[in-house]
């Protein structure tokens, strides 16, 4: 990140459901290839904001651009330029590893030869060549998550949104997953990630913390710890969210 180029720009984002304000005037930017941690307590408004950034829900007001496209009028272009993965929705369990890649590649509009190229690449990268014809349902959770992440970036998106990607996996797999995130960022993909593991907040370039629909803190993990006079992101989070 020699030159800061913003890939997400959010100005005064407001989202209301009736009289309830889910996102209360959010403003922030995310730089290209940054790993941006999007934290907050349950119900703080994270999912609402992510849906808006993915072009799945229109904001009530505010100026928001994702990958230089407008979230009101260019949602189709946004969807083509982002990847998304969550713990809950990832892959089709009753088709094989290869078929999942082929299916998603088709949805993203990749050519047949490009799809095959990407399948070969990821199977080698994940050392899963021998499992390519296995049903997803037969694989361990850790493998599924790595495959889900690969599927989410197979169309070379500008940004990948990861919604609690590491929930429930063992500690070794959780770390291997973060090495994949680092790798993606190193290759120029912006990573927008939510997590409840506070040690993972330390892996982010910058972290924002939402409380009651607002962003109450946004900085590098190092500066946040200094600002709150504590030694871990866990304590930053507890201090902010408990008030």
């Amino acid at each position: 990140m020699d030159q800061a180029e913003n890939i997400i720009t959010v100005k005064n984002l407001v989202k209301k459901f009736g009289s309830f304000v889910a996102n209360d005037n959010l403003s922030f930017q995310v730089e290209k290839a940054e790993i941006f941690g999007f934290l907050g307590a349950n119900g703080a408004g994270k999912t609402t904001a992510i849906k808006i950034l993915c072009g799945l829900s229109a904001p009530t007001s505010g100026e928001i651009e994702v990958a230089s496209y407008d979230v009101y009028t260019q949602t189709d272009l946004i969807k083509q330029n982002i990847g998304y993965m969550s713990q809950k929705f990832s892959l089709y369990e009753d088709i094989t590893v290869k078929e999942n890649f082929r299916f998603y590649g088709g949805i993203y509009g990749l050519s047949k030869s490009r799809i095959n190229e990407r399948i070969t690449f990821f199977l080698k990268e994940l050392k899963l060549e021998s499992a390519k014809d296995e049903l997803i349902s037969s694989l361990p959770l850790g493998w599924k998550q790595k495959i889900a992440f690969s599927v989410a970036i197979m169309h070379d998106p500008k940004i990948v949104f990861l919604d609690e990607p590491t929930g429930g996996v063992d500690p070794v797999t959780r770390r291997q997953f973060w090495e994949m995130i680092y790798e993606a960022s190193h290759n120029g993909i912006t990573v927008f990630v939510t997590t409840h593991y506070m040690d993972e907040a330390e892996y982010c370039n910058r972290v924002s913390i939402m409380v009651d629909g607002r962003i109450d803190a946004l900085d590098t993990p190092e500066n946040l710890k200094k600002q709150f006079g504590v030694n871990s992101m866990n304590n930053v989070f507890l201090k902010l969210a408990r008030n």
Partner: protein
Amino acid sequence: MISVQISEIIKSYGKKIALDNISVSINKGELFGFIGPDGAGKTTLFRILTSLLIPNHGFAKVENLDVVKDYKNIRKIVGYMPGRFSLYQDLSVEENLQFFASVFGTTIEENYHLIEDIYVQIEPFKKRLAGNLSGGMKQKLALSCALIHKPEVLFLDEPTTGVDAVSRKEFWEMLKKLKNFGITIIVSTPYMDEAELCDRIALIQNGKILSIQSPQKIISEYKLPLIAIRSDDMYLLVKDLKNLDQTNSVFLFGEYVHFTSKLSKINIETIEAFLSLKGHTNIKFKNIKPDIEDCFMALIENDRMSK
């Protein structure tokens, strides 16, 4: 005194072995944790112990009642909070609690002292339908419902999964208070940091128990030479360290990586020279004590090597 005895339990689903010869004894009044990732077998074990599933082999007793033969009596004395929210969504908070109390032939008033600390937090919303509660409130209601018949043993299956750090902390504070009523509490979690809040834990992976100890004991038995390292580029730091001869393992750990060595003593000078040569800047070393995650990862590795 033993509250829960698990002896040589095997359970398989078709070809898949969910529990592979598990034996554990849990003491009365103990706060005992089964710690392991999704798919380790935690939920299967909890279902067997609450009489909802029959094992293929082995036996288990809860308060001296056999989980297969005495299933009717077991159900009277255990409280069970499943991982998935299982209350009636279209009943109100109050109605759910009343329902569970009456099913067990008791009243809210009779055992109110057990749930008071937890229930007062959701009481302002007692007329609200359970389906319309926030995640944290659902969790508190589910715990209240699991407690209202004054169980002798309380089973909590992943009560904190998907819950934020603040609510997780509050939940564990509630469990500590419950311990004072003498209830045996058995909890499962994929969060390693929660292990330290238990009296004893069983680390479980792929249906096998890797260790049963107090968290302090597990940590004291860790033998690998361990040090924390950081530099300005953590991505390359992990990559480079993996190529060093003396490296046993390299794992990201917050703002540092945890490095274990094959040598009996870590040679910092060699590592520093190697990293400098690779162009790393701001290289820092820190002496650290292992935590539960370090131990779990070492145990997984031992288990893999022994195969």
